[in-house]
């Protein structure tokens, strides 16, 4: 899409090797400071997610009944929790859970939502109506109730949190991809593909889908943030990750009773969630400006 918009600026010069698409992208991305900082932060999180278990100063699960609820100090940078566990270590260890839950939930939602959206937008007619009304019904259900229901039916546990969170990101993905599909569908190259006899499947997957991808990427990024919060809200209602796990949302909700007595228990998990979600959102904002300036909804 971006290449189409810069029509007036396209002037032939092919002998000189121009910087590749990716390089160009990278360069202009680097001018968006908040997005760049966020990008590196997210990158750092993913690194932590992988090497986390090797760099935690303490065992994240090991209680120490001699140092309960210690405030931040040089031995425990973020203090200790109600079992004397080192909060910093738990946050590091928790990166894996929190990120993988949200990323996989959004991925699942994105895959299903994208398929529905593509089909709905491309085929149109009653298929579109059916899918869109279905989405309306899902929309009309309050997210959390849906989640409570799903967790209640499937039982607690991370896997089902993933499913629940994925479930309520489906309709929004479906809508957004449908919107993009409708737009792309009207483009000339789709007609061109039809005119050479390309079938629906081919048009949908090879011509339309790649065009909607930027929208999906942007929306995906932002939704990871939302998913982290949604998972935390589920934890708040006691339906999230296994409470003993260092999942950030679980840490936050389990420790919320200490807000008046040991604020650091609530502060640090809150801070990391805040920073992470903020980073995903700012990253998404930056990407959106570059990839998909017209994104609606």
């Amino acid at each position, binding site marked *: 899409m971006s*290449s189409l918009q810069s029509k007036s600026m*396209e002037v*032939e010069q092919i002998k000189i090797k121009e910087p590749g698409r990716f390089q160009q992208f990278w360069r202009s991305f680097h001018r968006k400071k908040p997005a760049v900082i966020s990008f590196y932060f997210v990158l750092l999180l993913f690194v932590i997610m992988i090497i986390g278990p090797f760099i935690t100063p303490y065992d994240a699960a090991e209680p120490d009944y001699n140092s309960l609820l210690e405030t931040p100090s040089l031995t425990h940078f973020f203090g200790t929790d109600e079992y004397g566990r080192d909060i910093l270590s738990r946050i590091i260890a928790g990166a894996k859970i929190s990120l993988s839950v949200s990323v996989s939930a959004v991925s699942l939602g994105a895959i299903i939502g994208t398929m529905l959206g593509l089909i709905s937008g491309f085929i149109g007619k009653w298929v579109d109506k059916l899918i869109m009304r279905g989405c309306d019904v899902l929309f009309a259900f309050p997210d959390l109730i849906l989640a409570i229901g799903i967790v209640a039916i499937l039982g607690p546990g991370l896997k089902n949190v993933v499913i629940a969170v994925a479930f309520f990101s489906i309709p929004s993905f479906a809508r957004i991809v449908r919107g993009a599909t409708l737009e792309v569908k009207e483009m000339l190259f789709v007609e061109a593909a039809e005119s*050479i006899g*390309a079938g629906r499947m081919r048009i949908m997957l*090879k011509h339309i889908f790649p065009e909607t991808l930027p929208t999906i990427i942007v929306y995906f990024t932002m939704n990871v943030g939302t998913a982290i919060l949604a998972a935390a809200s589920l934890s708040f209602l006691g339906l999230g990750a296994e409470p003993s796990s260092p999942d950030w949302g679980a840490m936050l909700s389990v420790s919320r009773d200490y807000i008046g007595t040991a604020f650091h228990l609530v502060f640090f998990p809150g801070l990391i969630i805040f920073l992470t979600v903020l980073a995903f959102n700012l990253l998404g904002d930056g990407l959106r400006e570059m990839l998909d300036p017209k994104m609606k909804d």
Partner: protein
Amino acid sequence: MGDILIEATNIKKHFPLKRGWFEEKRAVRAVDGISFQIKKGETFGLVGESGCGKSTTGRLLNGLIPVDSGEITFKGKDLSKLSRKEWKKYRQKMQMVFQDPFASLSPRMKIKDILKEPLDIHFKQMNSKEKDTLVMNLLEKCGISEFHLNKYPHEFSGGQRQRIGIARALILQPDLIIADEPVSALDVSIQSQILNLMKDLQKEFDLTYLFISHDLSVVEHISDRVGVMYLGDLVEVATKEKIFTDPKHPYTQALLSSIPQMDPTVKREPIILSGEIPSADNPPTGCKFHTRCPFATDECKQKVPDKQNIDDDQMVACHLYKS
């Protein structure tokens, strides 16, 4: 030249308009019953103002949209009743070139893949090597060097993209090319390159063109016969010579006189048509042109003029020429 390659008989296409829920159903009469034939090897030019239904005609012929009524025969075979699947076979013999070279190539596919795609669809048995050779040969002929095969469309200029578009249309070795304003978006210096290329290719591959344009000079340059459209109707069809030297329909005459001439010494008196083109969802009764026609009579307001063959190769739909 001689055999009729494709013939449209009284084809119609109305696009329903969606407005309020209770409003009576209206439709854009994009193509409102037109007939013409294109002979093998000739170039049939279709001119008319924006929105008069030129592109729709092209898309109908190519089967991208189904006709509401009327008949299209290609090499003697009636196409209007074919299913989607059957169309596929015929489409191979009829290819399109589009107006906007920036929008008609999938932006995320390499040139190589864009050109190979028709082969992937229609010649599944062909191996990759053969396809590559075919693609390379054709690109060469269209003036793009092999060096560019792995690039994306945005890395090319408008003229080059239009060459790629033409190459894509040619790769299936079609008989008919429907070119929908292939040069309108290009600068004059590039436009002439493309027109020349199309002429060369026509000779080399024995192609038949349906050449759609709003630019009369371009149409005059490339066509053998010309059809003039107004609001979904074909108002005049004739050989190029007749249209440009002896236009019959008042609309054709006005069109011709409106073209700015590149000679500042001649001070012309163009026929300035009053008013705007009426909307196609609510066309005037009778002759659709009567609202702007300097010669309109009461009859024109009421009666749709018949299509009259003034002679073998000139048809006009106007009450002025009643036999």
